């Protein structure tokens, strides 16, 4: 189940969900990794909680209920970051609240967590979260290497690289190439 989230159902390269934070926070490898891990934290917890209470939530209000639960976890995450990891909080800044509307979190809650057991949902959260984190870290590495010539903050060249990769166009280009490579490497699984 975990490997499903990383390969077969990788949220970034296969499901193509959560593109906004993917493109926005991968300006460097460490930012991508931080965002991925933060989202994974929310994914696992929200999957667990939603799968536990899915049966008592009336059908018509399930989306609002899920959103409240997800938003609470993201706010808790934000407060914890602000208190104990202020430097990471500064770097991720506006993108932390955006985890609430990250389609991956609500998507997994709706497509999986409310139909499966707590254990399975937790594993799905871990798998999807890891898939997302790996995708973001790789994309962040690529963009950081090409765009500023550094690797996890370690400068490898003098001055700037191809700045386009730190900006939006480069994000799309890099993501597209990574998607193609991913599909080729994992074989064409429909």
């Amino acid at each position, binding site marked *: 189940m975990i490997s499903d989230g990383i390969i077969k159902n990788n949220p970034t390269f296969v499901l193509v969900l959560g593109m906004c934070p993917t493109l926005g*926070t991968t*300006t*460097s490898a460490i*930012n991508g990794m931080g965002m991925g891990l933060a989202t994974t934290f929310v994914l696992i917890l929200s999957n667990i909680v939603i799968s536990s*209470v*899915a*049966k*008592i*939530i*009336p*059908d*018509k*209000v*399930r989306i*609002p*209920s899920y959103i*409240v*639960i997800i*938003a*609470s976890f993201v*706010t*808790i995450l934000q*407060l*914890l970051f*602000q*208190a*104990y990891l*202020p430097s990471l909080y*500064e*770097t991720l*800044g*506006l993108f932390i609240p955006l985890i609430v509307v990250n389609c991956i979190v609500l998507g997994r809650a709706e497509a999986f967590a*409310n*139909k499966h057991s707590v254990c399975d949902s937790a594993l799905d959260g871990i798998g999807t979260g890891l898939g997302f984190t790996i995708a973001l870290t790789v994309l962040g590495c690529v963009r950081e290497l090409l*765009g*500023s010539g550094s690797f996890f903050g370690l400068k490898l060249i003098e001055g*700037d690289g191809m*700045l386009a990769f*730190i*900006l939006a166009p480069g994000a799309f280009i890099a993501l597209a190439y990574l998607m193609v490579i991913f599909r080729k490497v994992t074989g064409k699984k429909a």
Partner: protein
Amino acid sequence: MASKSNFTNMVVVLTSICLVCAAILGFVYSVTAEPIRQAEVAKINNAIASVVPEFNNNPSEEVFEVDGAQVYPAKMDTTVVGYAVKIKTSSFGGPMQMMVGFDNAGNIYNTSVISHADTPGLGAKMTDNNIKLRTELVGINPASVNLSVKKDGGDIDAITAATITSRSFLKGVDLAYQVFLKVQSQN
């Protein structure tokens, strides 16, 4: 699967979820309030230490306000060695807070960005101490230098692809200098 959606059901479930979430959030907020406050104070003190010459007083305790900016006097024993001015201005992505330190000769000792809402990789580069925008300001006297980006006819190099942020940064430095002049003239 999910239960039937009659009116009572929906209201009760939604209300209880909101109440439980609010309670948990309130708890986490109260637990993290103190560490957050301390992190903020530490940030200010670090900013002050990085922008003025060596001091041995506690500038945060002697802070005073001039024109909406906070001025922190840095003293070695009882002699003032410099002033750190905290300026609140706005930049490309939102509000920005910076600390500009001046020594007694009126030169900029150093600058520091406390908080901002700019784009990582672009405007956020202003927090890097090694970029031209920052290093070109160290030790200069604002009275003898044109504090605007070269694009606007000034003497300072902007951050590549982040001109608006660079302009806001220099505007903040200029505001801090005006405050500093006022403080100096009052002494």
